[in-house]
């Protein structure tokens, strides 16, 4: 069985996680690997949680870097930065990738109250990501859907054809009853062939199958939004319930596509 890989998870500290039985709201590398083991997942792309903005995510990036050393191939780091920090953000990205082996850049418009149309803020980071040969993940989160639409991701992606852009949470706006339109995602992905999407927070089987049929099975990644949502749920959904897919297609969504994107061993 090819590797099962989660394309959207968090590690570090968030007091809310105490509500899930995590002592002190901390999820360290060893605990995270135990969670992976319990769910039958081989590895995960992990970012610092949003609450870490208070220290520009430094402590949690350190925890993730330590976890990558202790559990290579299982904890895969995603560098999260605040674009308004300018050169400090660029330095954090270059150090995380160049010195510590992080595999991608996460940008979340809630972190600095911007929109994906603020190109003067975003473009320097995309240029750096292109130089570092890493994918860029744009979180298209529930409350902020209007600041990070899939169409905005497509516009950016067209300007950087060598970079792969991940439209996180399948665009989210309009899905699960949230404001916005679920009709944004597929046209954006068709417009920009260097985009893929990721299922974090979306557990509606038909929506995912429809998207796969529209853009191709190699452009959808399994993501969980763990630990805010249980890490195991998308795996169950894809492997056991998306039964129009054949086994090879399920394996691509559940890990093969992320392995290809990050150039990980099969």
């Amino acid at each position, binding site marked *: 069985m090819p590797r099962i890989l989660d394309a959207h998870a968090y590690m570090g500290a968030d007091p*809310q*996680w*105490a*509500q*899930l*039985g*995590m002592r002190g709201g901390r999820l360290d590398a060893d605990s995270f690997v135990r969670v992976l083991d*319990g769910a039958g997942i081989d590895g995960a792309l992990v970012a610092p949680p949003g609450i870490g903005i208070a220290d520009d995510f430094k402590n949690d990036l350190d925890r993730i870097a330590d976890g990558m050393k202790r559990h290579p191939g299982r904890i895969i780091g995603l560098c999260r930065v605040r674009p308004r920090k300018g050169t400090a953000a660029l330095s954090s990205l270059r150090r995380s990738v160049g010195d510590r082996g992080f595999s991608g850049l996460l940008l979340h418009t809630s972190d600095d109250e911007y929109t994906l149309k603020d190109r003067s803020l975003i473009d320097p980071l995309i240029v750096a990501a292109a130089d570092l040969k890493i994918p860029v993940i744009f979180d298209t989160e*529930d409350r902020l859907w209007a600041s990070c639409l899939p169409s905005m991701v497509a516009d950016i992606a067209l300007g950087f054809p060598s970079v792969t852009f991940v439209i996180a949470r399948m665009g989210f706006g309009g899905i*699960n*009853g*949230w*404001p916005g339109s679920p009709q944004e995602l597929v046209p954006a992905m068709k417009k920009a062939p260097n985009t893929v999407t990721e299922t974090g*927070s979306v*557990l*509606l*089987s*038909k929506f995912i*199958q*429809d998207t796969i049929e529209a853009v191709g099975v190699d452009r959808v990644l399994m993501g969980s939004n763990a*630990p*805010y*949502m*249980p*890490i*195991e*749920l998308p795996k*169950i*959904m894809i492997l*056991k*319930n*998306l*039964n*129009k897919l054949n086994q090879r297609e399920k394996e691509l969504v559940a890990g093969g596509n992320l392995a290809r994107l990050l150039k990980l061993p099969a």
Partner: protein
Amino acid sequence: MASLVYDAHAYLGNNPGWAQMGLPVPLDGDGWVEMMDRSGVHGALIAPQGGGREQFFRPDMDRIAAAIKKYPGRIFGMCRVRPRSGQEAVDELRRRVEEQGFSALKMNTLDDNYRFDDRKLMDPIVEAGARLGILLYFHTGDRHGETCQPKMIGDLAVEYPDTNFNIGHVGYPGFTDQIIPTLKRAPNTNVETAGMFLPILLQNVIDEVGATRILIGSNGPNSAIELPHVMVSKYMNKLTPEQKALITGGNFRRVLKLDGRGAAAGRSR
């Protein structure tokens, strides 16, 4: 022996979209039992799917009636009505419950473009459901959530203290902040988790009102029916095993009076 798992929110019937998950269409009782068996779910409370609105849900409710008969103790029926049909809706509810063994009423304001605070429309149906001694289930949240707010269910529930009211989807998204005040105000209300996979939010509710007031629901087959019980059993680890067993099945049995206890939620514990 492990506790039985019950799903408090599911659908059956002729929804062409379900073919996208490789399911048979129409999905009937046989399909549901097969799905439950491979998902570790013992029983489910099943409503007709929303696409049957134009036919007043009758073909799918006939399918549910057949499934109740064929799989007693595993398939439980929700009678879905359009309140603007007035006495016809009341009569249909009574017939489905008394003659076909349906266990609950289901209402969704999308079905007839109405609001749960339109008491002129709502009261005859709620009154009939209360007299029949069944569970009353209400969809809340979503893009039309303004018409079906949890606090409106609380307003109804306080007038029928011996009837169980389920607040579907935990008011998600958009109205989850009304859940705890409503549950505190009306002790005969419960929430049901379908479509809401945020365990921190659920734990916050449990901390305030207790583990007896939450039932898992899947929204299946729109979402995989296995997901909510995996969420509660494996990922909500502030809960004791006893609390998990209540949420994944014990509360369902109490609310549907499967063990012969007749009291509404807040009065039985």
